């Protein structure tokens, strides 16, 4: 099977590391939106990239950076939407205006943009929708019509519906029906995928897999931003890998921080994430034999 996608190219700019201040903070449903005064990161950002925060301040027992997608970049500011989950994201969500935070970014490869005018479907799960706002604006400028699907478990876990609505049609789905259509994003995607030339998705792995499979089945190229556990975010630790099919058709353990987080939806071997398939390059040296 030949691929519908080419691997996402590197970003135009290198990342920087800065200690920046929280300029604004706003609770949004179950999330917290932080706006950082970070001009050098803002000016380098392309849609799909992320930043990595050091968490816990000077007394912290948490050494590893937390990766958060960039939900907006402009006017010298970078916006992120944080879902309080464990200690690190809870600390981030508790930052106050004026607090300093150490951030590295922009990181990762941006979403590749299609031929001008290609109609695009953007699918965001939970806070994942926030990461699609910059892309939507970018596509609109390039003449694409943008349709977005925002899904979440419940209304309070939706994000960026208004921002995406300003840039195109938005379909909302919630598992519990507390907002929009009851059901999963895939229900909406099934109706829409036939009308577009490219699909972009950001959200939990299960959703990415389903959307990528829908797009591929429909013969539409898709790009997904994966969320693998990352220790460094800059490509030096090798903790964030997943099996990805390269241009040569061979599968490698690719780092989702520097070779992703954006991958062709038909290149990620979702079913094999967390396993070591025998046909991954170098699996033989690990003692895994072909069946």
């Amino acid at each position, binding site marked *: 099977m030949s691929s519908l996608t080419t691997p996402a190219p590197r970003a135009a700019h290198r990342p920087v590391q800065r200690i920046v201040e929280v300029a604004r903070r706003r609770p949004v449903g179950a999330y917290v939106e932080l706006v950082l005064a970070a001009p050098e990161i803002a000016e380098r950002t392309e849609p799909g990239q992320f930043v990595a925060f050091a968490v816990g301040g000077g007394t912290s027992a948490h*050494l*590893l*950076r937390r990766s958060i997608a960039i939900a907006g970049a402009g006017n010298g500011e970078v916006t992120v939407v944080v879902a309080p989950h464990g200690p690190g994201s809870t600390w981030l969500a508790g930052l106050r205006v004026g607090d300093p935070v150490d951030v590295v970014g922009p990181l990762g490869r941006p979403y590749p943009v299609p031929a001008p005018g290609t109609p695009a479907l953007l699918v965001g799960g939970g806070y994942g929708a926030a990461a699609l706002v910059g892309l939507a604006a970018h596509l609109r400028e390039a003449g694409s019509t943008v349709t977005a699907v925002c899904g979440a478990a419940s209304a309070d876990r939706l994000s960026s519906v208004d921002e995406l609505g300003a840039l195109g049609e938005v379909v909302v789905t919630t598992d519990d029906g507390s907002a929009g259509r009851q059901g999963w994003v895939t229900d909406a995607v099934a109706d829409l995928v036939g009308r577009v030339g490219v699909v972009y998705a950001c959200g939990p792995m299960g959703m990415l897999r389903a959307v990528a499979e829908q797009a591929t089945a429909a013969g539409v190229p898709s790009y997904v931003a994966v969320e693998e556990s990352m220790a*460094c975010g*800059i490509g030096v630790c*090798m903790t964030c890998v997943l099996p990805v099919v390269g241009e040569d058709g061979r599968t490698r353990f690719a780092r989702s921080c*520097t070779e992703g987080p954006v991958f062709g939806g038909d290149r990620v071997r979702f079913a094999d994430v967390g396993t070591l398939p025998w046909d991954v390059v*170098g699996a*033989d*040296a690990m003692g895994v034999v072909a069946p």
Partner: protein
Amino acid sequence: MTAVETAVDMSTALGWAPVPSPVLTASGCSANGAELEPFVDLTAIGAVVTKSIQLRPRSGRPTPRMAETPSGMLNSIGLQGPGIDGLLADDLPWLAERGVRAFVSIAGTRVEDFAELAQRLRGVPGVLGLEVNISCPNVESRGEVFACDPVAASDVVSAVRAAADPAQPVYAKLSPDVTDIVGVARAVTDAGADGLSMINTLLGLVIDPDTMRPVLGGVTGGLSGPAIRPVALRCVWQVHQALPDVPILGMGGIRSGLDALQFVLAGASAVSVGTAVFNDPSAVARVHDELAAALAERGFGSLREAVGYAHR
């Protein structure tokens, strides 16, 4: 920080190979260097210690490969890498073109593998020396790790020393998971090691309270970061005490210049910064600067004067 005259001579050596800075990366914690370029002047640091390389390309282990732990982390990467051919074709030339010194870490599961790797690295431009990873607890062949058996460790080291470029110093990297680290240190130096890298990770385990199974597929993993710093320092102290003439590349939880200073005072003539790089990509350069300032504040004219000072 207060302005301090930092005209401290920071030069040191790895064995006989001179380096302008005592601060290096740690194997496996900075890939092969390129990713740090946006954050650090790689030509100014002591050397890039490359990720341990084996003969063949390796996929490494399936994920999850890590767990965060208090002031540290557990990892089980499984030595993912391109194999020696890839290293020689891509990574080492990249470093050499830029004038970045490489200290190449080699790993294997048989003595002959190590020797072959050393052989392949003879005369390669930019390769300052070799670090022999006999202590990685993550390789597939679990059994006993080479580093836990003085005889097996010596076999590897003497084979590597015999096969390696005579111009390249050979450092043996020791594991702290032994009853008597001085005994292992003595054995490998007797076998020809020109220096010792200490320490590799401690064997650890984390259980996921949700799945109620070990987090890592390989069950156990290697513990690193500031959490292990007191253990690392103790190892450096004990070995320097017993073998004061053997050069030590100290590591384990170094995050600041004052951390590095502790290792130097305990007997390390150079240090590697590992896990701290994940927290701060500019850590290697920052630690150099902070160490230089700390030495100056304490009245040292050169790094060399401070090596082992705490034993006096």
